[in-house]
């Protein structure tokens, strides 16, 4: 196991995702053969590494650490400029000095999940056995595998118990898994816009995305990196389809309506006449420049396989039996991907388990993406929940 400080990874134009894969612009923790990652699929991943960012200062009692778990398209760059896109961190609205998760008070950890493409071991990482990128030779990973790897990082940082574990969507799944796997290590769990299992509809959307990638001839059975190629079209289409599911009908209407893109009238062609088409194409293109197609396959699969109750005899409440962790769940009214009903299902299980749980449904027309956007009510409950947890454990 070894640390390396922020290193400069050359970004190679023809394979952008590889740029951060082995030597990211992040702290990296490397686990050698003596510390393999046990996998749900059977076997181990070894050696492997985790890329992470930290913000703020760990206090002497090591009691003010908050772990942020990212969603499908996120990474460890929670609150700093992204090294590939140059854009602000994906949760700078929520995390930072004076923000609801206040880095002046808390030690905040962002990590890239295993299976990702921003420096934690994933399909674009070099396979030491072959010297080439893993591609599909990487074993299938689960949410629980991701969390197990995070726990090894938290161990390394010398943190016995996290003040809070926070995340939305796939990040929320990790939060639930943390609370189920390591109840004594999580004082407060904050799963946002998530579910205890992926629905058939959501699996179906993911399958569309995967098929788009795999139908791209440049995917080359997952070996595109070795061939210096990239299934750009397929990944872009996958992102376009997924992006629709992150928004709501009303937010799409409010943003674009039926407005035309830089033109007076219809062109009677298949050009991007409508603003919404142009927007989706841009979203798809921008994603391809920072994300690895195989990572997209692995991470969507991990979400599909997530069914927390199934690991506990089919009874979700059993996942939280006798837990002392305090929970707060949040859903958004217009989120049709991870609905209020999904959150309430978790709340009922926590009630049945006797766990202290709060729940709020935030009014928003921004769909699933609302958890990443400027939502004052959401910020208010986040600040309230985190600060109350900090008071309870004596963090100033």
């Amino acid at each position, binding site marked *: 196991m070894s640390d390396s400080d922020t290193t400069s990874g050359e970004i190679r134009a023809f394979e952008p995702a590889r740029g951060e894969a082995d030597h990211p612009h992040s702290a990296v923790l490397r686990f050698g053969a003596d510390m393999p990652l046990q996998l749900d699929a059977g076997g181990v991943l070894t050696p492997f590494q985790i890329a992470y960012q930290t913000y703020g200062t760990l206090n002497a009692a090591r009691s003010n650490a908050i772990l942020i778990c990212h969603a499908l398209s996120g990474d460890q760059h929670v609150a700093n400029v992204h090294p590939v896109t140059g854009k602000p961190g994906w949760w700078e609205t929520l995390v930072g000095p004076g923000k609801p998760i206040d880095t002046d008070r808390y030690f905040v950890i962002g990590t890239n999940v295993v299976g990702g493409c921003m420096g934690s071991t994933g399909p674009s990482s070099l396979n030491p056995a072959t010297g080439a990128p893993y591609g599909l030779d990487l074993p299938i990973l689960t949410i629980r595998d991701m969390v197990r790897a995070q726990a090894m990082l938290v161990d390394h940082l010398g943190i016995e118990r996290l003040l809070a574990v926070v995340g939305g969507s796939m990040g929320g799944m990790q939060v639930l898994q943390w609370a189920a796997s390591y109840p004594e290590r999580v004082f407060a769990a904050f799963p946002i816009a998530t579910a205890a299992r992926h629905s058939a509809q959501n699996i179906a959307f993911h399958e569309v995305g995967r098929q788009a990638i795999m139908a791209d001839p440049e995917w080359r059975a997952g070996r595109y990196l070795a061939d210096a190629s990239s299934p750009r079209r397929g990944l872009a289409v996958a992102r376009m389809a997924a992006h629709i599911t992150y928004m709501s009908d009303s937010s799409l209407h409010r943003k674009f309506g039926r407005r035309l893109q830089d033109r007076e009238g219809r062109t009677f062609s298949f050009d991007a006449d409508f603003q919404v088409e142009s927007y989706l194409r841009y979203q798809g293109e921008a994603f391809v420049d920072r994300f690895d197609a195989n990572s997209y396959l692995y991470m969507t699969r991990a979400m599909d396989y997530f069914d927390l109750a199934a690991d506990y005899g089919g009874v979700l409440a059993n996942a939280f039996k006798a837990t002392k962790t*305090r*929970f*707060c769940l949040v859903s958004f009214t217009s989120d049709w991907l991870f609905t209020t009903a999904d959150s*309430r299902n978790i*709340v*009922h299980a926590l*009630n*049945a388990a*006797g766990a*202290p*749980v*709060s*729940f*709020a*449904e*935030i*009014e928003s027309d921004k769909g699933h993406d609302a958890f990443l956007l400027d939502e004052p*009510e959401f910020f*208010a*409950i986040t*600040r*309230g*929940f985190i*600060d*109350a*947890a900090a*008071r*309870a454990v004596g963090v100033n």
Partner: protein
Amino acid sequence: MSPRDLAIKDLKTHDLTMREAARASSGARVDLLLIAEMVRPGSRVLDIGSGDGELLELLATTRGCDARGIELSREGVNAGVARGLAVIQGDADIDLADYPDNAFDYVILSQTIQATRRPKWVLEQMLRVGSRAIVSFPNFGFWRMRLDLLVNGKMPSTENLPYRWHDTPNIHFCTIRDFVDLVDEVGAGIERAVALDASGHPVRFNLPWAVWNLLGEQAVFLLSRKG
């Protein structure tokens, strides 16, 4: 036990409670202090319609209770969460069904039963989810209400109940006697009952229900599941 006996029993404890209340001088509502006093220390409590969490915090800090809330408004939930309380945004008329049997020692419904769509169902659920229920409500049999209706011929509107008939959330008003009938109907036992007069003090006479029904502006009942 007759109301007369209940009142005698209450007098002893409640004189003390009111003194405590005065000492506390925390600005807490009198009916909330009265409810808190009815709850055995260290119990598991569910407060339905927990508002900003005032009663929950009172129960947690002064009675050492594991106190949880259900609250309809998100503002209320946010306020409760910021106090470090466990509050779920939800609707008593629907969400009580999702709680397991015997999850709590007490389920509290403070000044809210008149705003539920299904008061009887709610009361039954309370006594399923908890072994005891505490219900406080405004008494529509209070003499001023009766006088108001008699003299003015209009739906009464008071300081505590300032709404007009068409914009009130209070859709199921009852009197103390009506409530006692409902308690009978759902087969619950009355362990204690206190009527509070207009100044928020317990009605200090050992009198039959009919008199309480006149003099009490509001009432607090501690109920238990029979059998």
